[in-house]
């Protein structure tokens, strides 16, 4: 063995050592990540209730999913979470980060306060918000509305309001993370750029538009992709806040992940659930590829 090792060139030794170290995460990824993913593709072609025999049915699960009008509603809900949630959370986070960066007094404490919701368990937080949305006489938001003479709102019990009512705590909880990343991004811009612009007589708005925002492009792309994936996978808030954990009323708040969960663990239709998982996987894959493409273009 030693003789064999000694015969190798330095670059061969380096390669072998590198592969030995890489083998550990590789084995981990193959057994924990890739194998179940491939298995999901396989199960998506079966009719299987976890208990009985597996029955191969080809692409019937996919055909049934695409023919199901609830699927299209759920897919649209999922897109709405991302389409509205991402820009709203980004704008609010940037606004707070921008002004938080300007102030010195209590900066760390305020930043920590914004970050705390990010650390809180989503389920506990969602329960509290669920109570906030209750009708009078116990709902906090409706009590506040009644103070200013606005009639009480149904929030979680309305097919039009419920999705946004559930999105709000999700946006709120994610703000802390986005703010911290934005502040880091802003602080990474060399001070000299701002000083030069000020000497040239640029105003605050011009500096923001011409210097800060362009310099933050990588930060913005990163946060957009991360929070898009986050909103596309939203689950805890909907599961906790909707009545009977069903993404209601009338499926108006149900996202794809909850639909997968219901098929798999409430109805034990593992094939249908796996097919939906594959569809979600493909959506997330496209989002990630777009990210890579955008990053490459930036360079």
């Amino acid at each position, binding site marked *: 063995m030693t003789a064999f090792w000694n015969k190798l060139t330095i670059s061969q030794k380096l390669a072998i050592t590198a592969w030995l170290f890489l083998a550990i995460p590789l084995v981990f990824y193959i057994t924990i990540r890739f194998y179940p993913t491939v298995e999901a593709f396989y199960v998506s072609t079966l009719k299987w209730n*976890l208990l009985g025999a597996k029955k191969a049915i080809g692409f019937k699960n996919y055909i049934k999913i695409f023919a199901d009008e609830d699927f299209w509603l759920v897919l649209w809900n999922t897109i709405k979470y991302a389409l509205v949630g991402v820009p709203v959370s980004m704008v609010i986070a940037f606004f707070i980060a921008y002004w938080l960066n300007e102030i010195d007094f209590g900066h760390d404490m305020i930043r920590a306060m914004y970050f705390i919701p990010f650390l809180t368990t989503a389920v506990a937080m969602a329960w509290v918000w*669920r109570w906030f949305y209750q009708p*009078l006489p*116990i709902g906090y938001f409706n009590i506040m509305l009644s103070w200013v003479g606005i009639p*009480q709102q149904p929030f979680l*019990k309305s*097919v039009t309001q419920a999705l946004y009512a559930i999105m709000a705590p999700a946006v709120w909880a994610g703000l802390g993370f986005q703010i911290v990343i934005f502040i880091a991004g802003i602080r990474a811009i060399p001070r000299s750029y701002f000083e030069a612009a000020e000497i040239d007589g640029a105003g605050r708005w011009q500096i923001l538009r011409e210097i800060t925002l362009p310099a933050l492009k990588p930060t913005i792309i990163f946060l957009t992709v991360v929070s898009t994936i986050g909103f596309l996978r939203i689950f805890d808030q909907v599961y906790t806040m909707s009545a009977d954990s069903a993404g209601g009323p009338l499926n108006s708040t149900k996202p794809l992940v909850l639909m997968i969960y219901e098929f798999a*663990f409430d109805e034990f239709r593992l094939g249908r659930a796996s097919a939906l998982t594959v569809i979600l996987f493909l959506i997330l894959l496209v989002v990630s590829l777009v990210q890579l493409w955008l990053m490459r273009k930036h360079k």
Partner: protein
Amino acid sequence: MKKWLKSALALAIGGTSLLWSGMVQAVEIEYWQYTYASRVEAIDKLIQNFEAANPGITVKHTHFPYADYRKKVAIAVSAGDGPDVVQLYYGWLNDYRDGGLIQPLSKSAFPHATIEKDFFPMVSTMKVDGDYWGLPTAVRSLALFWNEDLFAEAGLSGPPETLDEFVDYAKKLTKKDADGNYLTVGFAVDTDGQDHHWWREVLIRLHGGQPYSDDGKKVTYASDAGAKALKFLTDVEATHKVGANGFMNRGQDAFAAGKAGMVLDGSFRISKFVKQDGLNFAISELPGHNGKRFNFSSYWVNGISSKADGEKKAAAEKFLQYLTSDEAMQLWLDTVGELPAKPAVALVDANKTHPLYGPFIRGLGYANATAFISEKPQRQALIDAYDMVVLQGVDPAEALKKVAKDEQEVFDEFFDQ
């Protein structure tokens, strides 16, 4: 042979045979159920009694959260592991039977004639292909909980006996502020709670229909009776304005807080309401209609898993016999608050006239158990139909047409297996 050697040999032989006999007799079986404090307590007491009466058998009691229960049992038994005696929701029985996870009860240990004589008739749902696959210890039915203080305040002396009275009472019990917001609801309607059972097995039948075909394969509630039943329920919120679905989060919370005149629930809720300070409540049978009464019942059964054989099977049978004995049923009622599955235990005077359990026990006499294929999507059918009518103004008959189609798909997929 020297004397000491003889005695040593004798001791060795005696010791070995003693050990051998001990090994033959000592059987350990496993019992699984889901975690629910009073059920865990009841089973522990029952195991203690059983082990005292059967010195050779020990029972290992395992329980875990409801959310994981069904898949864990399936995976463990499929892998040749897991329980010998297992507690199952009666609605899951078909799946477990098809999956070969449980075995039929032997006719010698559980003679059919005895089962049919001793248990409430609903036990027939457990008989498939000429065999019984499980037996219940306790059953559940529904009753009307009403707040005595609010009733007295509204000038009402007793519970409503008919659906018409029910609506009339709910109106008298409802209180609103100047803007029309509820302060107290007459009836705490809660479709996520027990109201879907009320609609399916009680209201539809009271209006002359039935929820499913006799063979349990077709959805039949998209009928005139179904629509009338749905209209009755949705009118509470939409027309009479005497309650709002999910007011104060859940019906049981509104009632516990003294903010609901009436709520419909199972006997397992008694323990919660009893502990509520300042809540004076009474329980009565569900209101009837046109001189008829119906109720809904459900139960959990105990079955023997396919894994148990030989001595373990014999021990499992003994344990199951004890779990379904009169003594166990009375203990279950006292500890968990669920009703005995045998008329001989349930219908004794002390239970029948019990102020809290009595109405539930009397209700068992005219109760139907739904043969669920998959409870969650089937419950969702009513939740969605209710929301369509109340939130979107859809006609009840139209709403039922839509949800019946969805539910029929669940049936078709199941029976197509």
